[in-house]
């Protein structure tokens, strides 16, 4: 029988052939938790009397959301996870100083591998699918169960095939492509399904852009977003000391059954934003300004699990280099991990940011999820390279967030209004 990528990985894990629509209790390769959902997982784990995690080498714990500790309560959550990591002898616990936003950190440290089935207590766990694996976000109780038993229940997902074709226009980047895709599918267009993303544009794209795309699969409702492992993937792991014999490269069969096929020609695309209050409310910057007039902004956030990697910071620096951010606009730049931060320092990007009038923060999820370090007041407007713009996402329920690429966010920082990079650069 012809199988999709998702069917193959789940079949491999359970040891017999499983097709879309079937339910399984599947052995999990790696389990990830952050402290925000993780403290609830740990409480559940203990409440049900579990003594030991199934395998301390397969659990990855990363404080990322309310760190550096925001207040006494969240300091307690971080401590709950730290203590749990110690008592359970968790190998992959990453303390402040070596941590990062988890979806930046796990790929960077090669903690998840092609061909694996990964679950994580965060909806953006789908990010790792860019590495040729199946990675699914879940809630706290699911993660508690997985930590105890090494298994999770799954419904084998149907698959939507996405094909990006054509040549990428200048200043159109991975974030623009995924926003176009979400617009095309709608926020529930891929509900319960896997998005299998490929085509000549993806083949030519580096790993960082690919991670940006799979990161936002959940914004179309998808269970997972995946990109087949190829030479880019092999090089990515090789640079991290993991060679091809250390993982499994799986592909869908050529006659596998898809629930839908979507093709997007990128050749004539322009930089876009997702306007409030939905990630599928996508429009080009030019069209939006033409329709609504100039849109003033109070804050710019460049970072997050979507766009906090070094290539994202390079794009922002390219725009901001030698210029000043508009007076009155607060620009917050957040490298996703310590390594990205260090690289940005070494390359002189941080110097460019500070000279332009931006602040550079330690890695954290802070403003993206409205937690800390960049909360919006009533009526304020932000442009952000993050992944969600629901009401109240970054602060007050009457604040607004426009989602964009680092290019558009940096260009807007200079103008003090939503701006296309073509306009200011």
């Amino acid at each position: 029988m012809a199988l999709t990528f998702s069917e193959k990985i789940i079949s491999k894990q359970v040891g017999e052939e499983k097709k879309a629509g079937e339910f399984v209790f599947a052995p999990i390769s790696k389990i990830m938790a952050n402290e925000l959902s993780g403290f609830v997982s740990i409480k559940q784990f203990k409440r049900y009397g579990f003594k030991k995690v199934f395998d301390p080498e397969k659990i990855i714990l990363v404080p990322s959301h309310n760190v550096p500790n925001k207040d006494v309560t969240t300091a307690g959550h971080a401590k709950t996870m730290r203590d749990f990591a110690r008592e359970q002898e968790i190998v992959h616990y990453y303390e402040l100083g070596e941590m990062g936003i988890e979806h930046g950190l796990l790929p960077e440290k090669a903690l998840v591998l092609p061909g694996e089935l990964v679950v994580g207590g965060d909806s953006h766990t789908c990010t790792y699918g860019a590495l040729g694996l199946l990675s699914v976000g879940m809630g706290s109780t699911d993660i508690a169960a997985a930590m105890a038993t090494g298994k999770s229940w799954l419904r084998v997902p149907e698959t939507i095939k996405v094909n990006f074709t054509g040549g990428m226009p200048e200043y159109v980047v991975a974030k623009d492509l995924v926003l176009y895709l979400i617009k095309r599918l709608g926020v529930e267009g891929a509900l319960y399904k896997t998005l299998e993303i490929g085509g000549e544009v993806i083949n030519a794209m580096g790993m960082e852009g690919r991670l940006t795309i799979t990161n936002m699969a959940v914004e179309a409702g998808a269970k997972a977003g995946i990109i087949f492992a190829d030479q880019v993937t092999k090089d990515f792991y090789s640079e991290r000391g993991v060679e091809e014999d250390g993982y499994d490269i799986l592909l869908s069969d050529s006659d596998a059954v898809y629930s839908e096929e979507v093709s997007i020609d990128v050749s004539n695309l322009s930089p876009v934003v997702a306007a409030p209050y939905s990630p599928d409310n996508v429009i080009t910057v030019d069209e939006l300004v033409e329709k609504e007039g100039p849109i003033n902004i109070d804050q710019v956030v460049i970072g997050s699990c979507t766009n906090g990697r070094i290539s994202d910071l390079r794009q922002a620096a390219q725009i901001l280099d030698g210029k000043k951010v508009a007076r009155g606009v607060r620009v917050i730049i957040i490298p996703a991990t310590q390594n990205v931060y260090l690289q940005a320092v070494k390359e002189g990007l941080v110097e460019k940011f500070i000279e332009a009038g931006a602040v550079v923060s330690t890695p954290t999820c802070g403003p993206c999820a409205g937690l800390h370090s960049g909360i919006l007041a009533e009526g304020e407007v932000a442009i952000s390279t993050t992944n969600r713009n629901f009401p109240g996402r970054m602060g007050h329920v009457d604040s607004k967030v426009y989602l964009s690429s680092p290019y558009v966010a940096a260009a807007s920082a200079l103008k003090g209004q939503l701006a296309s990079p073509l306009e200011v650069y």
Partner: protein
Amino acid sequence: MLLRGRVHKLGNNVDTDQIIATEYCNSENPEELSRYCLLAAEPEFHKKVKKGDMIFAGKNFGCGSSREHAPLALKGSGISLVVAESFARIFFRNCINVGLPIMICPEAVKTATDQDYVEADLSKGELIIGGEKVMAQKFPPFMQDLVKAGGLLDYISSK
């Protein structure tokens, strides 16, 4: 299990930030969370809601974050059942795991109006709206077992 409650109607794509914003996710106590439940969608919800009330929502209810605080906040508010045209998948799992009853039933959402009193038979997957019987989508047997056990951890513990 038979339920009777008053309907609160909500639209499409009500996300978990609207159900419970992260700034209130520092507790996992349902009663405490309930004070901030649906603040962004319906600021008065926490005052209006009564024990046994039901949510009738459109498509993709609970989209966004994986936070389990969302079903807990609804549970703490006294919500006895959430009926939606469709659910976001992590929210759907979380409801089963924390024991918040849910039904997928586009017809019921279209039929019921705000403040209606509705009866639900969870074991039959049946809703009575204004005397009319409406059937919800049946859960696959696998999920029925999870629900019967009282949630995922009870299911695992019983094995």
